[in-house]
């Protein structure tokens, strides 16, 4: 399987992407994507694919989905101008406020969409995995809303660092299964959810939490998340009088990023920058900067970029943020990097923490640790691009990160020169 594209191929694939032609009928975003699943799951995936073809863009489903987004999720979410941050950074900063969506992150757009789909497909129960817990909470809430039982797999490490979300899942009626295998974080949780699904593919709907996994998940999740970018694009034109010069989003699996970026792909003047977890450094296993430092491979059902050793074993990652602490990434991002449309950079733990505090102090918004990575990169970019208009996907709120943050001192006064 090739992963390097010549200029002609790259241009053609970018255009296909902009024209909405990807993934192709084989679930490919150029070379990336596909469906690498156990034979046991093949019928389930065929049902899912058929179900998506039948429902997803039907008027009826879209009406139901839009009604839930408006009436329950609270969409459209606000677009916030950040005057004090803008002054500090020397750019014009706008924030797309997914933290204001029900349950506190963009994850809910996808969760309620898939829960509605599962209901139409006749599922008897829902399983999901979660890293930061946001997708678990979103799934628990969405399942309650549509009336389906929900079981969430979560790595034991993440259970510890995102304790508030575990409690919330319980309250929302979900069963939370601690995953003690593998790296005990998001990747192990996905493996475990897949196993559970293999054991009971007929009645179970697997509600995946990011734009990763076997086809048609990366496509499905993108379609459910692109409301972020559609709204943001219209709002920034309305409020600011034009498109941004650049848009930033953090990238774990890549769902909030693809949701924000996808509707902007055709706006060639808008630079798009995905921000991965730079962890504690550039060394092996010290970060989760998949696109920046990984190589092509098949992980969890999809051909994409993977953090792996030369034997094809997946490498453990490190990040202060559970939601970015993942060795894989959605295949569409692998393509967007390969064709040069999106740049992927890293932000380190300490930069993210500093950005989180700066946003608290200047705008009174406590953002998620995941999201804070996007701010850190946007701040760096602003230094070299004074006066430009910056759009940041504020993917979630930081309440869930309190156990992690409360172990760190609050810096009473932010050092503006830093």
């Amino acid at each position, binding site marked *: 399987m090739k992963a390097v594209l010549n200029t002609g191929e790259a241009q053609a694939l970018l255009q296909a992407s902009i024209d909405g032609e990807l993934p192709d009928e084989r679930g490919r975003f150029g070379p990336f994507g596909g*469906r*690498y699943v*156990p034979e046991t799951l*093949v019928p389930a995936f065929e049902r899912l694919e058929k179900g998506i073809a039948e429902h997803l863009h039907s008027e009826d489903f879209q009406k139901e989905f839009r009604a839930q987004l408006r009436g329950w999720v609270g969409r459209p979410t606000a677009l916030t101008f950040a005057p004090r941050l803008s002054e500090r950074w020397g750019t014009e900063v706008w924030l797309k406020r997914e933290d204001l969506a029900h349950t506190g992150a963009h994850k809910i757009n996808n969760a309620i969409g898939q829960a509605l789909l599962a209901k139409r497909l006749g599922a008897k129960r829902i399983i999901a995995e979660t890293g930061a817990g946001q997708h678990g909470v979103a799934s628990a809430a969405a399942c309650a809303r549509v009336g389906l039982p929900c079981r969430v797999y979560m790595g034991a490490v993440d259970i510890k660092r995102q304790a508030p979300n575990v409690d919330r899942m319980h309250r929302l009626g979900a069963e939370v299964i601690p995953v003690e295998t593998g790296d005990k974080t998001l*990747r192990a949780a996905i*493996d475990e959810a897949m196993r559970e699904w293999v*054991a009971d593919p007929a009645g179970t709907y697997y509600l995946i939490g990011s734009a990763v996994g076997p086809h048609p998940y990366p496509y499905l999740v993108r379609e459910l998340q692109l409301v972020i970018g559609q709204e943001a694009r219209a709002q920034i034109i309305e409020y600011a009088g034009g498109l941004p010069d650049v848009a930033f989003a953090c990238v774990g699996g890549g769902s909030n990023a693809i949701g924000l970026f996808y509707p902007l792909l055709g706006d060639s003047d808008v630079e798009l920058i995905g921000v991965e977890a730079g962890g504690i450094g550039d060394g092996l296993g010290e970060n989760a900067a998949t696109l920046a430092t990984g190589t092509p*491979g*098949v992980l969890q059902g999809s051909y994409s970029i993977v953090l792996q050793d030369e034997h*094809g074993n997946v490498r453990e990652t490190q990040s202060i943020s559970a939601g970015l602490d993942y060795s894989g990434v959605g295949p569409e991002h692998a393509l967007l990097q390969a064709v040069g449309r999106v740049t992927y950079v890293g932000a380190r733990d300490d930069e993210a923490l500093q950005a989180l505090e700066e946003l608290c102090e200047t705008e009174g918004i406590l953002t998620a640790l995941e999201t804070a990575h996007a701010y850190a990169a946007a701040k760096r970019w602003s230094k070299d691009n004074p006066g430009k208009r910056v759009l940041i996907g504020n993917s979630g709120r930081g309440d869930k990160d309190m156990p992690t943050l409360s172990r760190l001192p609050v810096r009473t006064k932010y050092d503006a020169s830093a």
Partner: protein
Amino acid sequence: MQAHENITAAIAAANKDGRPALIPFITAGYPQPDEFIATLKSIAEIGDVVELGVPFSDPMADGMTIQRSSFVAIQNGVTLTWIFEQLDKAIGSIDAPLVMMSYLNPLLAFGYEKLAKRARETGVCAFIVPDLPYEESEEIRTALDAEGVGLIQLVTPATPDGRLKTLADASRGFLYAVTITGITGGDDGLPADLADYLQRVSAASQLPVCAGFGIRAATDVANVGEHTAGAIVGSALVEVLERGDDPAEFLRGLR
């Protein structure tokens, strides 16, 4: 003769003896890398075909037992390269044709052409790739084909008839009938309506059909043997290795 035909022949020979072929599975290099070849040899004396698991960091189709063995093997430095090197040393001394079970990514990292060549050289006659459905298999299949190495397809109770035919035709060596919906190492035993299913699979296949998943005891082997050409014993055997018991003795008890 193609390498994968060795497998078909070994199964046929067992059947000729009036018994189902026995296909033991071990995770390569587990529990101790330095015992790998010795274990393999002793197993190959009893098994008609031996299935070797390549350890992988994300064994998403496997239950706890094989997962554990996989992690231990990786920690002990077991890699595909290492496995081939060990097999190099044992060429000629292993009595049964080998099948390699690996998730796709280690194979991809190794390179398909080199893989096919090294497989043929070391007596690996076919591959089982649990996360590679037929639709995604063309590239590796072409490479393996060039060296006569087979790609064994799996079918499950949920596989519809049309697809069953496609998979049966595409398979080489044998056709793997997964007995249960689920991951390896389930404790629930074999399902009640197994006979119908296995007969349906056997009827669709030109190749011998071997059944795997959930086979733990001599009665299981006999049971599936009534409808198929062979039985694959995985988690139960790995548990024996885990306990430090003698695998050969366990396998003899299954025949």
